[in-house]
């Protein structure tokens, strides 16, 4: 199993009691978390941060343009202050400052992060961005995580998860940008609103670990009070080929 996907998988696996899978500390390929507006990307990212904070490894670096408005609910036992303390939030207000932060990450003192998270990548990709600029930002994210891995030492790596808001289908403007990002983030998790799932606001999460393991799917449901529940997608154990065409995955 890949650690990168593992943090997210553990975040998604909360609903199931089966925790038989052995946990490894190897950082897998970087992961892109994709979904439309309000698809729970921030909640999942934060849950992944809390999960990683409970591993007893380095701090978690959480980059986002603005502070979280609310914390995911229903995880009382895990939302303990010791875990929260391990999450270091930084709020680069512009692309310029984000790039500066990544370029100078090696100047920071203290223990290297075990997980690097970036929420709202789309907010940093506004304006006139050519392919090379988009690629450089993606490559710098990878390079920063690679440097943290190098600092941590062999056997343990720094994971990287980046959340990107995508437009609903039909908007081709971001196709090149998305395919560029997918080049650097081979593992992807797609979030789609699913009216048939349990709960008021339900999403289907599909994790493709970049050809390094089987795809897996979950339902992520948000109750009116903000509580988040995660259950394995039922089709997983049934006919795995029946849901092939329903995901928006793949090159546009």
């Amino acid at each position, binding site marked *: 199993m890949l650690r990168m996907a593992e943090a997210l998988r553990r975040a998604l696996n909360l609903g199931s009691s089966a925790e038989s899978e052995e946990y490894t500390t190897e950082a897998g390929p970087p992961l892109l978390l994709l979904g439309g507006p309000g698809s729970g990307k921030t909640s999942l990212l934060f849950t992944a941060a809390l999960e990683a904070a409970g591993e007893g490894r380095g701090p978690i670096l959480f980059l986002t343009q603005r502070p979280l408005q609310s914390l995911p609910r229903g995880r009382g036992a895990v939302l303990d202050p010791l875990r929260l303390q391990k999450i270091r939030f930084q709020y680069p207000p512009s692309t310029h400052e984000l790039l*500066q932060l990544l370029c100078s990450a090696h*100047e920071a003192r203290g223990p290297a992060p075990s997980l690097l998270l970036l929420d709202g990548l789309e907010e940093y990709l506004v304006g006139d961005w050519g392919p090379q600029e988009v690629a*450089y930002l993606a*490559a710098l994210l990878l*390079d920063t995580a*690679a*440097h943290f891995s190098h*600092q941590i030492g062999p056997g343990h790596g720094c994971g990287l998860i980046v959340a990107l808001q995508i437009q609903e289908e039909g908007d081709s403007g971001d196709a090149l940008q998305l395919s560029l990002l997918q*080049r650097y983030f*081979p593992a992807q998790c797609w979030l789609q609103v699913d009216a048939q799932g349990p709960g008021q606001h339900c999403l289907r999460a599909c994790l493709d670990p970049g050809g390094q393991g089987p795809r897996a799917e979950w339902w992520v449901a948000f109750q009116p009070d903000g509580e988040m529940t995660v259950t394995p997608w039922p089709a997983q154990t049934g006919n795995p080929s029946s849901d092939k065409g329903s995901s928006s995955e793949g090159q546009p």
Partner: protein
Amino acid sequence: MAVALPGVTLPSVVEELLSEMAAAVQENAQIPDEHLLSLKFIFGSSAIQALDLVDRQSITLISSPSGRRVYQVLGSSGRTYLCLASCHYCSCPAFAFSVLRKNDSLLCKHLLAVYLSQVTRTCRQLKVSDKQLTDILFTKKKQEA
């Protein structure tokens, strides 16, 4: 690795070729002709240009006390390009066009030269301060923007 991840790793056939070349260089201090032919077969004219860059010792590995590293390649035009050590990125126009936009090349000649200089161990080494490395990474961005 079963699948090549285009931004992160090389296809396994290229990985194998590079490691065979590295072993041959260690043994005989030169790259065997058959390996050069394979390289030409996979990368076309970029292979020759990349070998030329290696011959001219145009590749510099810049590192700072933090352990972070980056490559700088002096192109045939006299311009220097930045290549990241951890994933496939080069600041040259060919990388932007042929690799990123058209997706019809695997690497540009500068990135290939970086790989080949690792094989032949002919990288120049430059030690800079952590702050200077930040400037190298960040200035590159400003020049392009």
